[in-house]
Structure formats: structure tokens, C-alpha cells
């Protein structure tokens, strides 16, 4: 479902964040992306939904070559991918409910379906009682859960999460992991960048280690492998 071929990314400031990445991820896989801060994990992830474009190399999502994808088609690519952003990216003027509903409004879902799906997913992340609150009125962890809710509300085939447990207490982290496990069990591909050793070492999945823009390790049911 995801394929990268010799992907190289140099930011305008000269930093090389991907230095020849080759990877293949199949439908239904659960993949942890680990590595030290600044290793290029977010860049690796951002190129999948074309927030960033590689300087050279090719990326295929479900057979679509992202480098030849027209700008006007990018929204349709992004609708197939649920993204939990490292910085949440919630719309500050919309409340929790509206933020989650937004992902369904762009695909012109009917109001009844929207209401049902949004309330279900808010229930799932434990924020039903805060549906009317605005992002600034929420804690970091709560904002993160809204971001997670928005990424899965549309039941996408692929969920990409950039440190989705970064701001959560251990209990909530495990709850979120349960949600990911559950949607993964339904066949959704999950790619998750994380610094959480305990989770990686407990719920074993494929581990891709990134360092200096290169994949240094790729093993099934691997370990976190770094000293925190």
C-alpha cells in the first residue's frame, strides 16, 4: 500500500531529512517509526500525504505516484489517510465536535451520519462530555485525542500518527493504543512515530528505525532499541 523508492528530501535550509529511503508497507500492517529527535521521522511521515514533497525519488500510495499527482487531486489522497499530527493541528475557532466533524464535512457526508460518527468516535477517545469545548480550553492530551478522533472518524484505510501518545499519561496512552489496535484488527494500516519504549516493547509490531534520514533497522516484532 505504501512504497518509497530512493526517496531523498532536502529542506530549503539545506538540511537533509531523508537520504535515500526505500520501504514497503503492506495493507493492514502496524508499523512503529522510531529514532532520535530530528532523525527524520516526521519528514518520512509527512511525505506520505504530501505535506512535504521529496526532492527526488518516488512514493506510491495504493499505486498512485505522489510525484505525478496533480495538486487538485491531493485533497482526495488526504481523505483516504487519517493523520494525527505531532502538533495536533486543530482549528482554533471550531469546538471539539466541529473539529472532528470537519473531516466528514469536506467529503459532504450527511448531517445524520456526521452526528452519529462524530459522537461515536468522541465516545471512543473519551471526550464526549467535552464536545462543545474549544481547543484552547483543553489540555494537551485532550487536544491530542481530538486529533486522533478526527483522523479515524472517516474510517480511512491508512492512519498515520506522529507521536500520538506524546502528551498522554500512561493510562490514556494505553487506551489510545487499544483504539489503534482495534482499528488495525479491522484491517487498517497504522504507521506510528513514537518515542514510547514501553509501548513498542509491549505491543510488538514491525519497527522501522530512522537515523539521519536513513532507515537503519527494520524488523518485525522489533524492540524500541534506544536508551530513553
Amino acid at each position: 500500500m505504501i512504497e518509497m523508492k530512493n526517496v531523498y528530501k532536502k529542506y530549503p535550509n539545506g538540511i537533509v531529512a531523508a537520504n535515500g529511503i526505500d520501504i514497503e508497507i503492506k495493507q493492514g500492517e502496524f508499523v512503529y517509526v522510531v529514532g532520535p529527535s530530528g532523525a527524520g521521522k516526521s519528514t518520512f511521515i509527512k511525505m506520505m500525504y504530501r505535506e512535504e514533497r521529496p526532492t527526488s525519488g518516488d512514493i506510491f500510495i495504493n499505486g498512485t505516484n505522489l510525484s505525478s499527482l496533480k495538486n487538485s487531486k491531493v485533497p482526495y489522497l488526504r481523505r483516504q489517510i487519517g493523520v494525527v499530527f505531532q502538533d495536533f493541528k486543530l482549528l482554533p475557532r471550531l469546538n471539539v465536535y466541529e473539529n472532528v466533524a470537519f473531516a466528514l464535512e469536506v467529503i459532504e457526508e450527511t448531517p445524520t451520519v456526521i452526528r452519529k460518527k462524530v459522537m461515536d468516535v468522541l465516545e471512543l477517545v473519551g471526550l464526549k462530555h467535552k464536545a462543545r469545548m474549544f481547543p484552547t480550553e483543553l489540555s494537551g492530551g485532550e487536544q491530542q485525542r481530538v486529533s486522533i478522533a478526527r483522523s479515524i472518524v472517516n474510517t480511512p484505510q491508512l492512519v498515520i500518527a506522529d507521536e500520538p501518545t506524546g502528551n498522554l499519561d500512561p493510562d490514556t496512552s494505553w487506551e489510545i493504543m487499544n483504539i489503534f489496535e482495534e482499528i488495525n484488527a479491522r484491517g487498517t494500516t497504522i504507521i506510528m512515530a513514537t518515542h514510547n519504549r514501553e509501548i513498542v516493547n509491549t505491543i510488538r509490531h514491525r519497527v522501522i528505525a530512522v537515523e539521519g534520514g536513513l532507515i537503519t533497522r527494520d524488523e518485525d516484532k522489533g524492540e524500541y532499541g534506544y536508551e530513553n
Partner: protein
Amino acid sequence: MKTRTAGRHFRDSLKSISRNGWMTFASVSAVTVTLLLVGVFVMIMMNLNKVADDLEKDVEIKVIVELTADEAAITALQDEIKNTSGVAEVQYSPKEDELNKLMLDFGEDLRLFEQQNPLHNVFYAKAANPQDTEKVAKRIDRLDNTFEVKYGEGKIERLFSFLNTSRNVGLVLILALLFTAMFLISNTIRITIVARRRDIEIMKLVGATNWFIRIPFILEGMWLGLLGAIIPITLVTTLYYNIHKVVAPKLAQGNLFELLDFSPFIYQVNALILLMGVLIGVWGSFMSVRKFLRV
């Protein structure tokens, strides 16, 4: 686009108007000032134009016929004038009529001339294009049996050149005003959009198309334009109503020229103001949101 999406955009744009209170106020003020100036200006220009047209229409060529010309020669001359290129119409006024006109102006004392009328028979001609009056008059002058051809030489040339300059100056001023307004408004709207560039970025990242993002902004621009048109329309209408009430009767006595009638003129001006407000707002939003969509 589905109706409910349209409804969402509609609500969104209204929400944004009220949420961005101060920027809304600033944009609407800019639109208001501009439309007011444009409205008043158009009003003045259109009326000047009307006056110019009226004056032009009054420009006549007076063809005084030789005393020696007999009935047949006069008829022949009438045909010749009619066939002269650039002539729109000819009217014959025999010397008896001319005397009557004089009597109207100077009184019945002139009645004693009725037996021995010293006046000439006259043709009044009008040029198809008033601005060609001089040329046409010269052509008529070349015909036989014309004693003299008059058309208010000198005076009308000056009138025409004055009218032409003021028309052109007015047009240039209106255009300049419009451009300033568009620039001003697109800048104001841009400020409100810059404040929301992060929103736009986020919307795009979660799969919104450009139009999905653009439409609420464009609607917002439209509201700004409509709101900005309210005061100008009210003021321009009241202003013209009152001016018309005071000035029109005075001009009617002069018989030389008139103001444009209140209706439909004022509706046309108002429609223009409304249309321009909307165009300015929509165009301003469209231009401002454009460069933030490249995410």
C-alpha cells in the same frame, strides 16, 4: 456541491463576519467610503452627461433663405438640405412664422410689419451628430439660395470641448477610484485571511479542496461588499431625491436642460453601487485567499 455544503459555507461566512468584528468594520468602512464617492461621482457625471446631451440637441443650424428664392426654389432647397450628408432633420419656417416668434418675444407692436414682412424664410436643420454641426453648416452654406447659415459659431465649439473634457476626466476619476478601492479592500481582507492562514493550512491537510476553503471567504467578501453598500445607497438616494426636488422645478423654467428623472436613474445608480460592492468584495477575497491555498 451539495446543498448542505452550500449551507455550511453560508453559515461559515456569516460566522466569520461576526467573529472578525474589527476587520469587518474596517473592510466595510473602506467599501462604504469608496462606494459613496463613486456613487456621488456617477450621479454627477450622469447628470452632466444629460445636460451635455440636452445642450447638444438644442444646437440648431439656422439657414436663412435668399429673398429672391421663389416657392419652387425653396422646395428644392429643402430637399437639398435634407440630402446633405450629416443632416438629421430639416424644418421649414416661413417668414410669417418667424414674425410670430418675434412678436412673442417683443410684443404686438411688431404687428405693423405684417403687411410688409421684412424677414427671410428660414430652415432649421439639425446635425445627426451635434458635434459635426460646424461641418454640416459649411456644407449647407455651399447650396444655392442660402443667404446666410448660422449655428452659434465659437460658442458651441467651446461648449463641446468643455463637455468632452469633463466626460473624460470623470471617467478617469471613476476608474482611479475603483482601483484604489479594490486595492484597499483586498488588502483589508488579506489581513483577516493572513490571520487565518494556519486554519487554511489545516483544512487543506485534512482533505478540503481549494473551493471548499475559498467559497466561505468569497461569500464573506460578498457580505462585506453588501454591508458596505448600505450607507452609500441610502445617502445617494436621499441626496438625489432632495436635489431633484429643489433643482428640477427651477431648471424646468429655463427649458434648456433637465436633471435625470429620479426613477429609474436612482435605481440604476443603486444597482451599480450594489454590484460594485459585491464585485470589489468577491474579487478582494479571491485574490487574497489565493496564495494561501498552496499547501
